[in-house]
């Protein structure tokens, strides 16, 4: 198995200029994914995970930092080269229906990438589409259907088939299962895993759902207000979290048997304060942060322990 890095970002920063001031959507974000592996970007609204996805797909340009797909820096490419690079990185989005053109048939939707790059004759394309639909569990009866005739799960399968049409190396899954029913979500997750193994795909999985991240991801990066506050593998994140936000996230997940040591989450629903001056943006929600002045003044540096990294002055103690 090749361990080459296929997708990498370095110190990615993106600032949006809005009516009420500037918002730093991404702040010095760096991650890399080796071929065949999955990185989950976990975060809530405002964490910057969607912005990261858009930057990686070349749909936006960053203010500073680099995005490298298969070793190529996106900002060094001209329009034509960028379009060509899209053969290697595809996307599946959250809303099953709106990501498919409602005027097109399933066949037309799935063969769109092939049409875009003028691949194959009409017959070859059709055959490829039938194969793709089969690999996502849909039979050829679906070829002539339109999106509004399908269920959410079926639409999502079509979107996955389309993403695989030109045999990409990387697939960005932007909340790809969040809009599905529980039972359908399970089907699609199984499908995604199966496809990853069969085709040696690399996944960048954007999600707010820790359970999904736990199931699919080899590495998990927890994001808060534009920064990666903790990064590690499953065991490190779930059994030995160091950042208070990670712990908060984990203990907020409603379970049949809630974990014993729930940290009492602070009820801080005040009117949002844009870009507070604190060194740590999580300070106002953190019991420890509010008590320590360093969290307001001292600049944060990444702490490392093997492949586990976090951004915190007073991290939680080791549990393993």
């Amino acid at each position, binding site marked *: 198995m090749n361990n080459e890095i296929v997708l990498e970002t370095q110190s990615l920063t993106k600032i949006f200029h809005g009516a009420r001031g500037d918002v730093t959507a991404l702040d010095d974000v760096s991650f890399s994914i080796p071929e065949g592996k999955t990185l989950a970007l976990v975060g809530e609204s405002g964490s910057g995970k969607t912005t990261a996805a858009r930057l990686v797909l070349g749909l936006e340009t960053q203010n500073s930092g680099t995005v490298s797909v298969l070793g190529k820096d996106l900002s060094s490419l001209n329009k034509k080269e960028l379009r060509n690079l899209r053969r290697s990185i595809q996307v599946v989005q959250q809303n099953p229906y709106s990501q498919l053109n409602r005027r097109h048939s399933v066949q037309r939707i799935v063969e769109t990438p092939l049409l875009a790059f003028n691949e194959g004759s009409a017959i070859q394309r059709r055959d490829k589409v039938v194969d793709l639909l089969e690999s996502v569990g849909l039979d050829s009866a679906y070829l002539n259907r339109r999106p509004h005739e399908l269920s959410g799960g079926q639409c999502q399968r079509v979107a996955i088939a389309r993403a695989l049409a030109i045999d990409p190396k990387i697939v960005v899954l932007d909340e790809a299962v969040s809009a599905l029913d529980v039972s359908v979500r399970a089907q699609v997750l199984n499908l995604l895993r199966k496809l990853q193994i069969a085709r040696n795909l690399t996944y960048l999985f954007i999600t707010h759902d820790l359970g999904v991240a736990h199931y699919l991801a080899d590495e998990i990066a927890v994001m808060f207000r534009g920064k990666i506050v903790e990064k590690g593998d499953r065991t490190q994140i779930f059994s030995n979290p160091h950042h208070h936000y990670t712990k908060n*996230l984990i203990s907020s997940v*409603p379970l049949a048997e809630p974990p014993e040591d729930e940290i009492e989450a602070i009820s801080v629903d005040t*009117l949002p304060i844009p870009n507070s001056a604190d060194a740590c943006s999580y300070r106002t929600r953190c019991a420890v942060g509010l008590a320590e002045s360093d969290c307001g003044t001292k600049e944060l540096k990444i702490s490392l322990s093997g492949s586990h990294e976090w951004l915190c002055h007073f991290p939680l103690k080791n549990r393993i």
Partner: protein
Amino acid sequence: MTSTLEVRYLTISVPSPSGKKLAVDGISFTIPAGKRIALVGESGSGKSLTAYGLMRLLREPVKLESGEIWLNGRDITKLDQKEFRKVRGGEIGMVYQDPMSALNPIMRIGTQIVESIQIHSAMNKTEARKSAVELLEKVGIHSPEESFNSFPFEMSGGMLQRVVIAMALSGNPKVLIADEATTALDVTTQSRVLHLINGLAKERGLSVLLITHDLGVAAQFADEIVVMYAGRIVEYGDIRNTFSNPLHPYTRALLDSRCDYTMDHLQPIKTIVGQPPRPENRPSGCAFAPRCEFMKNSCEVSVPMLEVLEGSRVACFRAEELHKISRAR
């Protein structure tokens, strides 16, 4: 235990290309005073229509065909529009998924709460204002005075949902219906809002109907669970019992298809074949039969009725048999 809200044989029809179909087919359940019931189901289960039906918010061509809703000793389906308006927002408070749909975007939130208070009580403006500020504080909004004068667009989703809860509480309800009230919120905010609803319910002896597709939410915040599939109730019982020992194949399959971080990630998730049927495609007999791994031919002949088994109610011809088998293991 006195029951606050009792639903009897609620039936709601929706139009379809092939005529009227029963999206909710004769469901009955009871919410005792001070208890929390989770109404759980997927698409096409009819759970949201049930919520709207309870509040008589159904619009033509969707229709409440039959059924009774008993609230504190009277059947509210028989009330006329004017009387029911006192109930809606008064004795029954409702919180929806999208807080923005419950709030007027161009009015300050304080004003909206005051308006709601004055509709359901005899307070004058000063008293109502004071009560509104207290309510805002009660739902966990710090600096309530400042928030009183804010507009909805200035607030986050979590705060807005708290405001909506405050409005729902302003009518002094006996029952609170939360229809996917936290689905659109971040998980940390969801946790806090659910804890808030929990706390308030305990404090005021409220009954809560928690409508959700999230089994974890049901598990942590409900006392009893009603599982709906294709417009009918398939299982109805105590939450702990149902989770540790699901009686209906659908309930069991639904629990198995969960994906949370306590599961073993190396195992593929156990899934149910196919997808939930839409009202117009409902199979005859047991609606779950085509997808059920325990199906027998007899399952497709007639619709199973809810029967009592081990303290729960389950609608499955083979429930008892399957329960014995699983016990024997």
